[in-house]
Every structure is written in structure tokens, then in C-alpha cells.
């Protein structure tokens, strides 16, 4: 074959805007998700300052509503999921022995739509007010009658970001199904890849429901629709059903990858094969399935009747079974293992009891009769922060410390890492443990202030102190990243004595990942070779030219187009004082212009076939890369 293609190679900023390399896109996801995590964290701290003492007037009631809405929306959609996507992008192709993801171009498109969607939600702060109807945006509160333009930013911004998530999910599914290295059967896949596989499946079936909900909300608010407008025959409970049939699976989209990370960490740092691997796979798939069967437990108090409530209550409690299987498997993996207490390992071990506590309060909430008492109190707030922060965020931090050397070629500082862990871990329990009692003692969620001497004063004060400690823990992680960034790239290819394929290639990996695809001969492929006394993997193919996709600016431009179109639709009916602006938006010039940009890019992409380029074997030899 002749490989005479020449390809434009970019550097600097253009390299990042045009990259289709899954490792770089992983870094972009991690950076953008981390940025939104800081914004969401700042919002959390402002919320806790306001609630620090009774009758506080640090922020107004309106600002408080905006803060809680944006905190929830940002953390779930713009921080937690993108950081997971960052790790998935960085790790999955390496774990299954692939040179790339299935659709590199779409991977880039997924990142940029997420980024510009997230930006659109957040610019609302500067353009007339952030969304203020809670992250669940229940109508009629979120209707144009009771909420300002913030909800338009919410609906359209999340719609655009959702495209990115869906595209990413499909990409990972195809990558995992079609691009595993020879010998990498499904039952030899590392747990993180398995968890990401099931997560992607949930994304595929949950996100389109959210898309319809957001479209319906947009239609109601901007185009005079009646989906949720009771005066036109609409039904507000319909929104709740649509939202939660997406929203409950979303919880498992968040937590399953964390389960996967913990499985990797616990097994690596205990120097043992994961206990009950096949039951772990079974439990993951079962949780993925049950996640769709339980959405009504968010609606026990709506009045759907005892039969419905009872069925969804039982289905909800069933999830405790596979989750319990996982918890015991992690404990049995550590049992008798040679445990090393690295930062990643600390996060992994702290995850287990913390998540169990969140799970147990989840079973408590699954009892409809009891839920009538807990509903909309701080008990619920405590519960979901225990599973999402105590589960997912501990998992992400663990994953970051675990895979940082692989992604960046530098090992994060362990002393600083441990300090950040203890600040975050103790701060977390200080913040949220007491909120269980606040809830049981009657403090409703979403209130911007409270009267003194109701028994809530001290616990709220403690909770705020804890929030500051978590903030310090997060800052220490940032400082750690900064300091480590100043050091040379000298990380070993396998700094933790790892078990899976990503540790067989240099840190950071070359752009083609594997010079020769590895032959996988069992679960924990690298460990199997190590125990057989081999220094490296057996190659499954001779050295040959490696096909690479070309970089492209189109995904970036397409997302900018969607961003512009989103603004255009939002301001369609807006009362501008400026005649020119009114014309631009009122006649849909802006919205149609934005869509034209996006569709023109789609047209270009479809008409011009880009066959990519090749890295020739001679080039591979020069770099002296080990297989």
C-alpha cells in the first residue's frame, strides 16, 4: 500500500482545538470538567456560608435559588460526567489494547458540544440571571410564568451538552465491542472498562428521554406549547416521569464508573486478582438494568397510589443486592492482600464504608411510608451527597491519582496527596453526616434561611466548617497538580506494579498507543505475563504501518454554531431596546445562522472523505518503543 498522504500537523492552541487523539481529548475533558467542578464547588461554599447561621443575609433568596440550581446542574452534568469521560477516554482504549476509539472525529465533537453547552448554561450568570428552579426544573416553577430566562439557558445548554454525552456513549460502546485486542474477550476485560461499557449503555437509553423533556420544556417556554401548562390541558407530573426516567439511570451513569475505578485500585494495591470477577460483571449489568426500573421512587409523594409505590419500592431495594455483592467482593479482594497505602489506595478504601452509608440511607428512602417523612428534607440531601460525593468524587480522585502518571508521565506528590485526601474525607463527613440529623429534625431542603433555636443552628455551623475543609482538600489537589507539572516527565511505564494493559506502554503513551497490538492470554493480562516471568506482552501482529485519523477543526466550529443557535432561540422573543438586535434575533437570523454553520460543517464532513495518515514502521523503530 502506498501511504503518500500528507497531513497538516498543528501545534499549540490549534493542536488542542483540532485534536482527535483520545488521550488528548481525555485531558480536555478532565480540564474542562475540573474547571466546572471548581465553579460548582464555589457555589456550594456560597450556599454553606449562607446557611452557616440562622437568618443570614449573605445572599438574597433569589441568588440562593440560582446557586442551588447551578450547583446541582453544574456538578452532575458539567463536572462529574465530564471528569468520568476524561478518565474513560484516557484509559479504555489502553485497557482493551486498542490504538484508538472507534470514532475519533465524533469523540472530539462530543467534547466540544459538552463544553459549549456547559458554557451556555454558565453564561446565564452574566446575561440576566441563572436558572433558579432547582436542577430538576419542575414545572410549573420552571414555566415562563414563574421563572426567568435562566431556565432557557438550562434547557438549551443541557440539550447541547447532552448531544456530546450521547455521542461519547455510542463511541465507547462501539470501541469496546469492535476494537478489543486479540484474546481480549468480554470476560477478560478490566472492571473499569466493563463499568464504562454498562454506563455507556445507560447513557444511550437515558439521554434521549432527557432530550425530549428539555425539548418539551423549550417548546412550552418559547413556542407556546402546552406539555406542562395545566391551563392548556398539560400535565406537570409528565415532566417528573420524563425527568426521572432519565434522572434515575443518570445516578448509575455516575456511580458505575466509580465502581470500576475502585475495582482497579483495590485489586492493584492489594496485589490480588479482583475477588469474584464474574459476579462483579453480573452485578454491574444488573445494576444497569435495574437503574431503569426504579424512577418512580423519586415520586412517592406525588400520589400515584400504594400499588405503584410498593412495586417501585421493591425494585429499588433490589439494587442493594448487586451493590452488596460488589462491596463484599472489594473487601474479599483486600482480605489477605498485601495492601499498600498510596493516595489512590486511600481514596479507594475510604470509598467503601462511605458508599455503604449512602446506600443504607437509600434503602431507608425506598420505603414509601418513611419517605413521606424524609421527602424534601436535608436527609435526602445527605443521602445523595453520600452516594455522589462519597462514592463518585472519591472514586474520581482515586482514579486521578492512579492514572495521572499514565496520562501525564508524572507521579503526583504522595505527601500532598495524602493531606488532600484527609482534608477532603474528614471535611466530607463533617459536612454531610450532620445533615442526616438536620433532615430528621425537620429542616427542609432548598430553604435559603431558617429561624434560630429550632435545633438546627449548631449542625449547620458544623456542616459549613466541613465544606471549607473539602474546599481546602480540593485546593491541595490543584497545588499538587501545579507542583508536579513543574517536575520532569520521568514516570515509569508501570509505577504501581499494575495488572492491566495500560501499564505495558510508556507514560505518557505514544500517539499510536501500541506499536504492536498485544496478545491477551487471560484476565489481568499484564499480571499474567509478569507471573509467567515475561517482561512484556507477546505481540499479536508484526510491526507495520499504523493508520491515524487526521486532526480537524470542524467539531469545534460545529459546537460554536450550536452555541450561537442556542442563544438565538433564547432571545427570539426578547425585548431589546436596540432595533438592530431585535431584528437579528426576532427574525431568527442568529438562530438560523448558527444552525447553518453547524450543518455546513456536517456537509463538509460528509462530502470530503478524510482517509487519515500512516505512521511508518521506520518511524516506530526510531522511537525505540517497547511493545
Amino acid at each position: 500500500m502506498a501511504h503518500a498522504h500528507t497531513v497538516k500537523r498543528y501545534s499549540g492552541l490549534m493542536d488542542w482545538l483540532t485534536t482527535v487523539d483520545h488521550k488528548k481529548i481525555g485531558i480536555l475533558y478532565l480540564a474542562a470538567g475540573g474547571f466546572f467542578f471548581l465553579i460548582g464547588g464555589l457555589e456550594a461554599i456560597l450556599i454553606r456560608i449562607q446557611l452557616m447561621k440562622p437568618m443570614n443575609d449573605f445572599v438574597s433568596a433569589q441568588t440562593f435559588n440560582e446557586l442551588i440550581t447551578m450547583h446541582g446542574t453544574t456538578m452532575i452534568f458539567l463536572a462529574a460526567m465530564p471528569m468520568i469521560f476524561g478518565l474513560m477516554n484516557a484509559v479504555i482504549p489502553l485497557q482493551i489494547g486498542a490504538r484508538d476509539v472507534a470514532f475519533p472525529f465524533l469523540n472530539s465533537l462530543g467534547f466540544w458540544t459538552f463544553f459549549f453547552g456547559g458554557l451556555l448554561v454558565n453564561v446565564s450568570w452574566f446575561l440576566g440571571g441563572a436558572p433558579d428552579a432547582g436542577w430538576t426544573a419542575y414545572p410549573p416553577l420552571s414555566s415562563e410564568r414563574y421563572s426567568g430566562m435562566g431556565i432557557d439557558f438550562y434547557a438549551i445548554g443541557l440539550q447541547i451538552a447532552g448531544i456530546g454525552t450521547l455521542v461519547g456513549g455510542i463511541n465507547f460502546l462501539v470501541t469496546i465491542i469492535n476494537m478489543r485486542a486479540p484474546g481480549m474477550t468480554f470476560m477478560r476485560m478490566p472492571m473499569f472498562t466493563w463499568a464504562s461499557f454498562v454506563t455507556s449503555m445507560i447513557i444511550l437509553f437515558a439521554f434521549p428521554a432527557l432530550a425530549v423533556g428539555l425539548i418539551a420544556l423549550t417548546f412550552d417556554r418559547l413556542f407556546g406549547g402546552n406539555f406542562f401548562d395545566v391551563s392548556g390541558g398539560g400535565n406537570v407530573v409528565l415532566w417528573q416521569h420524563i425527568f426521572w426516567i432519565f434522572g434515575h439511570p443518570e445516578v448509575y451513569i455516575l456511580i458505575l464508573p466509580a465502581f470500576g475505578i475502585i475495582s482497579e485500585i483495590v485489586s492493584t494495591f492489594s496485589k490480588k486478582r479482583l475477588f469474584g470477577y464474574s459476579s462483579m460483571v453480573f452485578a454491574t449489568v444488573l445494576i444497569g438494568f435495574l437503574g431503569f426500573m426504579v424512577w418512580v421512587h423519586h415520586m412517592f409523594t406525588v400520589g400515584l397510589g400504594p400499588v405503584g409505590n410498593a412495586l417501585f419500592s421493591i425494585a429499588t431495594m433490589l439494587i442493594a443486592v448487586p451493590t452488596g455483592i460488589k462491596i463484599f467482593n472489594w473487601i474479599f479482594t483486600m482480605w489477605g492482600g498485601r495492601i499498600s497505602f498510596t493516595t489512590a489506595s486511600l481514596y479507594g478504601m475510604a470509598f467503601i464504608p462511605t458508599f455503604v452509608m449512602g446506600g443504607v440511607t437509600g434503602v431507608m428512602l425506598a420505603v414509601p411510608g418513611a419517605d413521606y417523612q424524609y421527602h424534601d428534607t436535608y436527609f435526602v440531601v445527605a443521602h445523595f451527597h453520600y452516594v455522589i460525593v462519597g462514592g463518585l468524587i472519591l472514586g474520581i480522585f482515586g482514579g486521578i491519582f492512579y492514572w495521572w502518571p499514565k496520562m501525564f508521565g508524572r507521579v503526583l506528590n504522595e505527601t500532598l496527596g495524602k493531606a488532600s485526601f484527609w482534608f477532603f474525607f474528614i471535611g466530607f463527613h463533617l459536612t454531610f453526616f450532620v445533615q442526616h440529623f438536620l433532615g430528621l429534625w425537620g429542616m427542609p431542603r432548598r430553604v435559603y434561611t431558617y429561624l434560630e433555636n429550632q435545633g438546627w443552628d449548631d449542625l449547620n455551623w458544623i456542616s459549613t466548617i466541613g465544606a471549607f475543609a473539602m474546599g481546602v482538600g480540593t485546593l491541595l489537589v490543584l497545588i499538587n497538580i501545579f507542583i508536579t507539572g513543574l517536575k520532569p516527565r520521568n514516570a515509569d511505564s508501570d509505577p504501581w506494579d499494575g495488572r492491566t494493559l495500560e501499564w505495558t506502554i510508556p507514560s505518557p503513551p505514544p500517539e499510536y498507543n501500541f506499536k504492536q497490538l498485544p496478545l491477551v492470554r487471560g484476565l489481568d493480562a499484564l499480571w499474567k505475563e509478569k507471573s509467567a516471568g515475561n517482561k512484556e506482552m507477546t505481540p499479536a501482529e508484526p510491526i507495520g504501518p499504523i493508520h491515524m485519523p487526521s486532526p480537524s477543526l470542524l467539531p469545534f466550529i460545529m459546537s460554536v454554531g450550536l452555541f450561537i443557535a442556542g442563544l438565538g432561540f433564547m432571545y427570539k422573543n426578547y425585548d431589546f431596546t436596540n432595533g438592530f438586535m431585535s431584528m437579528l434575533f426576532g427574525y431568527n437570523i442568529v438562530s438560523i445562522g448558527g444552525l447553518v454553520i453547524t450543518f455546513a460543517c456536517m456537509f463538509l464532513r460528509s462530502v470530503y472523505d478524510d482517509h487519515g495518515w500512516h505512521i511508518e514502521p521506520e518511524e516506530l523503530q526510531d522511537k525505540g518503543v517497547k511493545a
Partner: protein
Amino acid sequence: MSQTHAHGHHGPETLPPEPEKATLEGRNKILGFWLFLGGETVLFGTLFASYLALRNQINDGPSGEQLFSLPLVAVATFILLTSSLFSVMAIQALHRHDLKGIQFWLGATVLFGVLFLGLEIYEFFHYVHEGLTFSTSAFSTSFYSLVGFHGAHVLLGVLWIALLIVQLSKKKLTVVTAPKVYVAALYWHFIDVVWVFIFTVVYLMGKVG
């Protein structure tokens, strides 16, 4: 990479019997598209659920029973189902490596798609004339959303396949263009299946009550 079979006297000698699945890129594209259609199923499922929840909320506006004309919808259904048959013929031509055949049958698909769209636009104009606008009732909003989403899918499909026909005459049938044809046919079948449900759930149930 792409294995070469000396098979098929209609097409270029180098093209394998199932050119759409000959490369990893092609197989990825087809699998990814099947998964995408899984997501689309949820999208339409949610729209159907919303419509079913709201279809009796007519809010002083006209009801479906008053408006729907089954003969018109039956003709539209016949046209769309036939267009799906044409896209099957295009895939058969693809497997014969018959470029002209692919273009002919895809052209027929597009033509019938346009006819269907014309009927739908006429239908919507008629309903608006009878007093059923998007804002009239929860029934009207959910009806126009569900059927309109399907219509938008048909429109996109028509534009997509038309562009594909033009591309084919320039790039011919290769392992790169074959998956594109295959995937477009999958999309068109999906649109057809959704319409069968719309015909049943919206029009037949709307007429019977």
C-alpha cells in the same frame, strides 16, 4: 485489511461481496448506527408516551377524531412503506455491486419520501386551518411534536440520501461509500417503523377513540 475477492461480475473486481462490512471503519459505522437507532427508539418512545398521556386534553380545540382523515393517512402510509421497499432494492443492488441500481432505487426512495412530506405538510396546513395550532391544547402540542419530529426525520433523510446519490456518482461504490449507503437504508427503515406506530397509535386509535 480489506480482503479481495474476485466476485461479482457487475462491479469492480476488487470489491468484496459485502463491501459495507469489509473494513473495521465500515463495521464500526454500522454498529454505531444501530446503537444510535436504539437511542432514537427511546426518543420516540418518550414522545409517544407524552402523546398518549395528553391526547384527550383538547382544551376547547378540535379533537383528533374530528380532524383525522384515514384515507389520506393510508395513502401516506402506503407511500412511505413503498419507499422502504425501494431502499431494500438499493441494498440488493449494493450487494450486486450495481452502482446505477443503487442510485436508481435510492432516487425512488427520495422521490416517495418527498411525496410523503408533501402530504404531511398539506395535512398540517389543513389542521391549522381547522383551528388546531401548536398552542391550541396539550393534544395539539404533543401531536405536532410527535408527528413533526417524524416529519423532520423524513426531511433529514431525504436531504441525506439525495446528497449520497450525488456523492456516489463522483466517488463510485467503494468500501468507504458502501457503509454510507447501508446506514442510510437502516435510517430509512427506522423512520418507516416509527411511522407504523404513529399510524396505529395516533391515527387509528385517534379515530376509534
